[in-house]
């Protein structure tokens, strides 16, 4: 966009002119008394660490034997020093925090001194995917720092980090990580191709990338998994998936992914397989419950009173008697209230948010029951459904589940249970058609693959996880080699 100027010298003048408009652009001339050389430093004060200039650059340039530009490499104690004659690099370098050094009279040769100022968080606790057991690091906004966390966990030469730049304005750095020799190159190519094809000006977060490179942008389902846990990334790299890091985003992306992966918390791998399988099943049940409970309530109360056991009839009818609305309005009213509380809680600072949650939950809930606007049974259901939707370990899918409830509600209102089934069929079809980086999203359910079911709804023990997911079609399908057939011990054998 800014490379409109063909003539190089012209370009440099133009750059200077544009930069001069910015207040933080500094262009200072110095004079070395020892060698009688005058030199200029150009930099953007907001991007450059002034301490580095004061302590590691200026003292040496002013007091050492600095005669020509080539000497800079010897006298300045900085690691990142680069000599260049290429004018087109100047803009790039200046905006990534380098100091441009030129010696008067020889302006066509220059030297870039890396003095980038690092402002950003330190590695902190994961907030979205917190786990009680396991590592407590999470990614931060700085790409280098994030990649550092991964390199530490996968210290092998096969771990490849490809870097791309996307966004015409943001010039966001994107890193594609995979393990050479394991990951299917087809997947890497797909990711690379799609990222290269991105046409957008300002990419501020990895969420932009997810949406732009998704197979189906009109689906409410996230088609790439995002995580802030380095341990998760390193584990999925070993499985043979591709990770995408975006500079400025504390969430890394994983692909290809499947629906069930969104319901597996990474803590599952830190618990014994029996426990984690149990928790996974509970979570799955919670999700189904959360989506279906209000629609089934509406369908049953509006159309299928025959289904209700006679012992429950008293409780149900008595709680509904005084309510003037049909079940659908009652349900929508409560659902919307819960959504409001959730939105309010998410936008407010933590402490206020908690208060709002309690006030909203208790006060509004009790008041609306007492006022005869909703039945207390539905209130229990909706509260449970809301609770259940929070059990999803990945935040994004939780949002999807929130949304899914509404079409189901509408269908339940129209055709009762039959409507729920029809709506379910639509959902099922959508999921069957959906792909993540060209791989089926509903795998290992459909296409059914026994091998991948070992780590889907339940997680079998690690010695059963000998193969990498079939979904990924990896180059090296075995994770480890099975030891020579184990001798089956009898009870009393040593």
């Amino acid at each position: 966009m800014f490379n409109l100027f063909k003539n190089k010298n012209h370009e440099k003048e133009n750059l200077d002119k544009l930069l001069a408009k910015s207040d933080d652009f500094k262009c200072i001339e110095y004079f070395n008394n020892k060698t009688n050389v005058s030199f200029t430093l150009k930099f953007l004060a907001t991007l450059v660490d002034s301490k580095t200039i004061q302590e590691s650059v200026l003292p040496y340039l002013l007091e050492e034997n600095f005669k020509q530009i080539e000497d800079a490499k010897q006298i300045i104690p900085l690691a990142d020093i680069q000599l260049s004659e290429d004018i087109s690099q100047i803009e790039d370098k200046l905006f990534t925090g380098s100091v441009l050094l030129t010696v008067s009279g020889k302006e066509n040769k220059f030297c870039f001194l890396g003095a980038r100022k690092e402002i950003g968080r330190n590695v902190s606790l994961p907030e979205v995917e917190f786990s009680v057991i396991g590592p407590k690091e999470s990614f931060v906004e700085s790409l280098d720092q994030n990649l550092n966390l991964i390199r530490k966990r996968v210290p092998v030469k096969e771990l490849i980090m490809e870097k791309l730049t996307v966004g015409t304005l943001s010039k966001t750095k994107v890193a594609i990580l995979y393990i050479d020799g394991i990951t299917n190159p087809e997947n890497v190519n797909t990711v690379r191709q799609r990222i290269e094809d991105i046409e957008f000006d300002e990419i501020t977060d990895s969420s932009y990338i997810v949406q732009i490179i998704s197979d189906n942008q009109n689906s409410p389902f996230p088609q790439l998994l995002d995580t802030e846990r380095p341990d998760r990334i390193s584990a999925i790299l070993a499985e043979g998936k591709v990770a995408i890091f975006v500079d400025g985003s504390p969430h890394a992306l994983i692909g290809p992914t499947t629906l069930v992966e969104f319901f597996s918390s990474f803590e599952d791998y830190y618990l014994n397989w029996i426990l984690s399988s149990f928790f996974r099943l509970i979570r799955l049940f919670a999700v189904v419950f959360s989506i279906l409970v209000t629609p089934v309530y509406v369908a049953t109360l509006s159309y299928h009173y025959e289904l209700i056991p006679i012992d429950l009839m008293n409780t149900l009818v008595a709680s509904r008697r005084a309510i003037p609305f049909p079940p659908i309005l009652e349900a929508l009213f409560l659902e919307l209230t819960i959504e409001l509380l959730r939105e309010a809680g998410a936008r407010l600072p933590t402490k206020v948010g908690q208060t709002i949650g309690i006030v909203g939950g208790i006060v509004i809930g009790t008041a609306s029951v007492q006022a005869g606007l909703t039945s207390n049974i539905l209130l229990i259901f909706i509260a449970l459904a809301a609770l259940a939707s929070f059990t999803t370990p990945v935040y994004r899918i939780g949002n999807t589940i929130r949304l899914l409830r509404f079409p189901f509600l509408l269908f339940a209102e129209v055709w009762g249970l039959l409507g729920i089934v029809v709506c379910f069929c639509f959902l099922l079809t959508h999921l069957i058609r959906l792909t993540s980086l060209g791989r089926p999203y509903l795998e290992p359910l459909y296409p059914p693959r026994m091998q991948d079911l070992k780590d889907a709804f339940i997680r079998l023990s690690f010695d059963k996880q000998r193969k990498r997911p079939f979904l990924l079609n990896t180059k090296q399908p075995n994770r480890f080699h099975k030891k020579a057939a184990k001798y089956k011990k009898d009870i009393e054998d040593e």
Partner: protein
Amino acid sequence: MRSILKLIASVFLALNLIGCVKKEVLDDISLIEGIGFDYIDKKNILGTVVIPVYLPDQPPKSNTFSTKAEITKSILQDIQRQTADPIVTGSIEVLLFSKTLTEKLGILPLVDAFQRDPSIGSGLYLAMVDGETKELLAGQYGIRGTATYISKLMEHNIRNEDLPKSNLELFLTDFYQEGKTPFIPQLKQIGKNKMEINGISLLKHGKMVDLIEPKEMFFFKLLVDKYSEGMHLVKIDSGEAAVRSIHSSHNFELTKRNPTEVTIHIKVDGIINEFTGQELTPKTIEGLQKQFEKDIKKESLKLIKRFKDKQLDPIGFGHFVKTQTRNFDFNNWRKNQYKDLVVKIKADVKISESGVIE
């Protein structure tokens, strides 16, 4: 690419405009939980329905509505004109018929509506009422409403006591099964808010023809139900014992043809609940077992003889012999064979426990 959301939204709009089906919102309908039918004259019957009114923190109050009509559905039609909310039949639990009605008209024409209606489950209970159903249903029984009271009453008597299994499904099965006579329990109001099961009525072509007295019910259940429970009082010289059968079963065996002879093996596993005599020695227990076996034999044969005389077959001998015979002729069976049927009973009583004291 078509967005699924857009699709759902447009479909929903279209549906809401034209495609809706009739709603039956739970609190805007009157649920009939029980119906009773009384005899008026040859053409007309009096129908009484029980509709509970549910109140918060209180047991439901049972309201009854009565009307005169010719068939079941027109009764409901008439009652619609009396209730604030439309009445629905989906949660009916009991169907009652008065004794006079069962004797004179039969219950078949009335049952048809309930068999045809898809919203009615086939697990509902049928019963005959000794007296008028209208009076019986007018009482307030228990804390769960009249109909629930009756259905629970029957349920626990079927499960633990000597009432044989019976509901709409079994009634219809027995009715349609050739060589089997259906039966339904009989209820009687014994006080303002009290009722009891006081027998089992046998129905031929839907009309009542015979009644099993409460004291015969234990043996009737042994013959009719594959597995049964119940209590029987055994008297021997050294005292009386209340023996509870905890697990009994019967088996039929076709032992001879021409004339047909069927042996029924009855096995009873019992425990002694009460003994009035001095000491309960192994010998007394043996005596009790013997006496119990004798009782079973005597009472059962008495019952079977009665059924044969009245041309009834609630035990299903006809059906049993049919399953053992190819090209079975039911007409011949009814006319000749059943009369000549010889039934032998082989009872085997085992008393295994006698409580926590010696």
